[in-house]
């Protein structure tokens, strides 16, 4: 019991590397450990190596270096069909020549389960995704959303402890996607399954997951719960990638443990929270979330740092108002406000004073 984190890990990547061609590392030094029952999302731009990680876990690709452990056992030498991992593919991969019920029965059949037990489980799985009446249909006769449910049911019907999903909602329209996000999280939590979910959609990642691993260029940039990821991005890539973000470029002139002073390129000095900057003279990207910027003079916190801004554009979005400002040389500085009766409406061309709290202003690597 010296290292509880490792003992409890259900899925563990230990210094895993992967190269397809022997020249480029697609996955670089991946370390990840997941406890049982966790819903973990791999989020990252296309080509960042998410699918590759999933395929290594499922056994369709082998790691070039490092070890993958499942429940403490190294699985590098276990063939895919013996890993007992449920998988949902992006295009569902429902077998077109089998009916829905036959698709669901397939994993049970190959496990040599008796017919009556099989039928019972298939029925239960279909009911679970509210598709009880569709057992006799062919996949081609179902809509995208229905196929998605069947694919989910098929991955769960043999009661795997670990389920992998590779952009399972990518092909659905927005409304259906939101509905399915909810369904998938509900099922995963109800059944207590450990889930590795891959997506490039940050909203999906934030709303569904217990923890999110942000991938870029074959590396995990940050691994954290959604709120931490959004509010405390560890570097400028994560800050840019997750949510909307305003960036101001500058140079560190003073640095302490929980505050630093940044000299912006426009000449102004601002206070910020040092996140991954350490030396005076370093270039930095200062990140501020739009909703943390206040431009209503009456609500401005006395501790807030203020700065002049010129209104460039007003964007009406119904529930919120968005304004594009020019701040310290950045013409794409966004602020937002709720469409409330007392909301301040800015007019383009106007010069105003905006402000934010120093702890909301994070000095990140450039």
């Amino acid at each position, binding site marked *: 019991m010296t290292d509880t984190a490792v003992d409890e890990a259900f899925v563990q990547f230990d210094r895993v590397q992967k190269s397809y061609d022997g020249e480029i590392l697609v996955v670089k030094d991946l370390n990840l450990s997941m406890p049982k029952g966790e819903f973990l999302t791999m989020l990252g731009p296309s080509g960042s190596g998410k699918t590759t990680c999933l395929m290594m876990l499922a056994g369709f690709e082998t790691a070039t270096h490092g070890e993958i452990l499942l429940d403490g056992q190294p699985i590098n030498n276990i063939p*895919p069909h013996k890993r007992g991992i449920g*998988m949902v593919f992006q*295009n569902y991969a429902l077998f077109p020549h089998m009916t829905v019920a036959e698709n669901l029965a*397939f994993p049970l059949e190959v496990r040599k389960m008796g017919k009556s037990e099989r039928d019972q489980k298939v029925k239960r799985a279909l009911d679970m995704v509210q598709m009880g009446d569709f057992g006799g249909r062919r996949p081609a006769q179902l809509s995208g959303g229905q196929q998605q449910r069947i694919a989910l049911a098929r991955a769960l019907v043999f009661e795997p402890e670990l389920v992998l999903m590779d952009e399972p909602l990518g092909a659905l329209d927005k409304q259906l996607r939101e509905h399915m996000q909810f369904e998938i999280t509900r099922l995963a939590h109800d059944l207590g399954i450990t889930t590795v979910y891959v997506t490039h959609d940050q909203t999906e990642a934030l709303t569904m997951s217990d923890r999110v691993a942000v991938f870029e260029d074959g590396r995990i940039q940050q691994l954290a719960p959604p709120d931490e990821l959004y509010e405390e991005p560890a570097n400028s890539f994560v800050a840019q990638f997750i949510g909307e973000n305003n960036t101001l470029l500058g140079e560190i002139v003073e640095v302490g443990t929980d505050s630093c002073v940044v000299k912006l390129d426009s000449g102004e000095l601002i206070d910020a929270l040092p996140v991954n900057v350490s030396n005076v003279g370093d270039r930095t990207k200062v990140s501020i979330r739009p909703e943390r910027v206040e431009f209503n003079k009456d609500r401005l916190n006395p501790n807030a740092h203020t700065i002049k801004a010129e209104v460039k554009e007003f964007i009406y979005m119904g529930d919120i108002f968005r304004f594009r400002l020019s701040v310290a040389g950045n013409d794409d500085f966004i602020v937002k406000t709720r469409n409330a009766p007392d909301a301040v409406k800015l007019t383009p061309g106007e010069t105003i004073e905006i402000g934010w709290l120093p702890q909301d202003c994070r000095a990140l690597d450039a």
Partner: protein
Amino acid sequence: MSDTAQDGPMLAADGTTLKQSLARSLRREKMRALLLIAPLLIFIFLSFVVPIVSMLFRSIENSILQDTLPETVVALENWDDQSGELPDEEVYAAFVRDMLVAVDAKTHTRLGTRLNYEETGMSSMFRRSGRQISRLDPVEDAPFKDKLIDIHDGWGDVNTWAVIKTHAVPYTNGYFLNAVDMQRTPEGAQAQPESKQILVKLFGRTLYMSLVITGFCILLGYPIAFLLANLPMRSANLLMILVLLPFWTSLLVRTSAWKVMLQQQGVINDTLVWLGLVDDAARLIIINNQIGTIVAMTHILLPFMILPMYSVMQTIPPTYVRAAKSLGATNWTAFWRVYFPQSIPGIGAGSILVFILAIGYYITPEIVGGTQGVFISNRIAYHISSSLNWGLAAALGTILLGAVLILYWAYDRIVGIDNVKLGG
């Protein structure tokens, strides 16, 4: 006003009905499309439709008797071929008059050849008698009955006249009967004598060997198509070139190469003897028989099996097999239950292609088939170029065409032609 407009047909701007003006504008488009494909249509018509129709026609056409012996045919109508007696003088006189015209026009030998298909000896009988009949006078030398029998005793044989009478119809089923080892006789359709029955056997052999060849092509082609569809791009391209290589070599050269390989002093036998697997005295006979035909044709037709299979397999995403494995299927189960069923349309397309090509194959069986390994098409070629019995050749060809169409229909009923894909 508005009522009438709604009740009646919709009108276009110029007052004609919408249907009419739509039809007019579509017609123009259709005409243009037709013009574009006109050269192809004309070519297909001249090189495909016309020959086939003329072949179908030749297999029943039989006007030569009535054209060459018009009076004899009329005179023979009053003669009973079952009576066992020779026809009257009237028939002989008519025959001499007909022959005088025919000998002048030199058409009597062609008639002889035609009748020789039905009764051997007719050809020389007509040729020899023709010369002597031409010296007779149609009026002064009467009566002719005995004179003709003097010229050639065949004219004194009831059977000669019975054959002429039996075949004196403008359209005959005789060629088709011959094609299935039967013949047209005065007593109706009857089986050919045992010694002349070879065609039905040949049809059977053609079908059977084509099936065997198709089967071998499936067995050999499937793994290659699978590799082509699943190897990395570069190796797949190389393999594809190897598959297509035979297309760049003349068919004749490939077939002759098999002769070199398979003959008793050939490469395969030499190797086997050298390895000590076969005794020098007992070299394998693997050419000029069915084995030779099957080996060479399987090799030659293999690309036609591989290509459709490949193009179907290419459209099967690898995720299906992965999904099957993730669901717990072994490699074999994943292949057999998930991959294979989806590749069946490719097997279907390849099989139809290979089978239909095989059933009408000619050059290869001719070169490596010997007597035991020839196909019906070799017989057709023989009748076209050697025996010149085009009617029989046409009947055989028609039956072959019919057989292919029937098999195609049966295939459609059993497998469904929608299940045949050439990719996409």
